[in-house]
């Protein structure tokens, strides 16, 4: 089966003197597959997905998105990307944002009339009349997911999709991912919530300092009798200096 997206020996750094933010990452994603990209803060997860979405240019390596370079707008026609901490033109309303993005996706009037109300209802924003600048972080996150699925993508990238969602929102996102997987959509999930990743992802890659520490199916990465969190902590701690203990002013409570 042809890969929806394949990433080969990807390297990225933001300034010449900086260390590599992404260093030799390679993976491929097939239709109907859910791939979890895990790693501590600053491990390069968001840089990887932004390069796949054509937002950042890699220094080295190649990305094939539906057989083309992500910089080609046509390659992004079947991509849905829900960024971490999403934002939108702040004086627009949720419906207008979706109509704007539907125009960019090239949806005709009939499709817009059909999809926008349904997408708004899914995101729980169908009754929302305020402008985006008055939205909470959770509402923006829901709108971010809504705009990502609006174009009925064949690849959905979710970067920390549930970070600001309430439990109901998280449940809806899990159901969305399961449903999309069944219909053949490939899902790339960046998340700190390992239990969530364990529930929905078929394959995972654990990153630290821009490098892939371990990659494979869930069964390959997580041996029987262990949890993904245990494996993650063990791998990440082995690759990074141990963090300092709690501050002394917290632990030494008896001292003045």
């Amino acid at each position, binding site marked *: 089966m042809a890969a929806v997206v394949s990433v080969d020996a990807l390297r990225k750094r933001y300034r010449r003197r900086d260390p590599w933010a992404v260093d030799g990452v390679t993976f491929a994603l097939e239709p109907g597959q859910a791939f979890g990209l895990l790693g501590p803060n600053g491990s390069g997860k968001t840089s990887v997905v*932004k390069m796949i*979405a*054509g*937002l*950042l*240019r890699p220094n080295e390596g190649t990305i094939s998105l539906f057989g083309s370079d992500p910089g080609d*707008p*046509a*390659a*992004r*026609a079947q*991509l849905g*990307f829900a*960024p971490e*901490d*999403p*934002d*939108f*033109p*702040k*004086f*627009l309303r949720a419906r*207008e944002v979706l109509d*704007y*993005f539907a*125009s*960019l*996706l*090239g949806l005709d009037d009939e499709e817009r009339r059909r999809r926008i109300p349904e997408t708004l209802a899914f995101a729980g924003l169908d009754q929302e009349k305020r*402008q985006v600048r008055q939205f909470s972080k959770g509402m923006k996150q829901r709108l*971010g997911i809504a*705009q990502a699925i609006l*174009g009925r993508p064949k690849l959905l990238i979710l970067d920390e999709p549930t970070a600001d969602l309430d439990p109901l929102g998280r449940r809806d996102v899990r159901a969305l991912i399961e449903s999309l997987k069944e219909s053949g959509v490939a899902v790339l999930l960046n998340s700190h919530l390992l239990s969530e990743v364990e529930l929905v992802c078929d394959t995972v890659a654990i990153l630290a300092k821009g490098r892939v520490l371990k990659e494979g199916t869930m069964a390959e990465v997580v041996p029987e009798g262990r949890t993904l969190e245990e494996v993650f902590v063990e791998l990440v701690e082995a690759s990074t200096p141990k963090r300092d203990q709690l501050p002394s002013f917290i632990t030494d409570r008896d001292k003045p």
Partner: protein
Amino acid sequence: MNGALAVARYTLLELSRRRILLVFFIIGVVGVAVVGIGLKIFSVVSPVNFSVSGPPGSAPPDPAKVDRFLELIFVSTLINVVGFFALLVAFAIGMTAIYHDLESGAAVGIFSKPVSRLAFTAGKVLAAIVAMVVLVGLVGLEARLAMFLFGGGLEGALWVETVAAVANAVLLMLIVLALSTWMNNIVAAVIAFIYNAVAGVVVALHAQLAGGQLGDNAIVKAVLDVSYWLVPHELMSDAARQIAKAQFDVIPTSEGSPTVDQVMAGIPGASSLTDIIWWVFLVGLMALLVYVAVRRRQV
């Protein structure tokens, strides 16, 4: 094309909801109304303040010429108000139209859609120019209506100056847009403001040089000639000259004072075709710079 139009459409919708543009529009509308109605009321209530006289013993000025002079002052003031308003709008749009999308993170969602950076830039520039034309056009129209208070005859000068104000402001706005894609929008506005002021000084000095008022020092001439082609040339009608000439018609000159020709030589005339071609070139160049800045930008 559809992508550019979608960007333009929603940028215009956003601009229409920005309070700062509304405030600037109110300032422009009130400014023209105050100048128009206020000057008329003042001239009717206190005509003595508008009387002009020549040297002792000279004949009193022709009332028709005085009326003409008043109208010229009126038009000159309106032109300044419209020009100032256009500059405010240029900064308000230039500082926000692209910068806020890039800084807020809205560009992440937009650029991940199948829209090219060229279409995004074209849409933003189109929306910015349309907003500028509409806002300054409305204030120019109000100024035109206010001119009915003073009779007529100089509508052409006002329209030409309004078009020139829009053209000058569009160029300034593109400079701010291009800079604000590279850097903080307030810093961009300050740099554009200083550049615009320096350009004004260079153009004025060049006009004086051409009029022979700065002597014939070869170094000064070479420096000003080179500088002149490094800055935008503010487009203008010959309204300033008309006003100066009318002043001479109304106020007889005394012996020893500068002649009409001497004064005229120091006042910039209507923009030449070369100036207009230079403006078109600079607008194209700035639009290209905006595109290059947007294209290079990683979000």
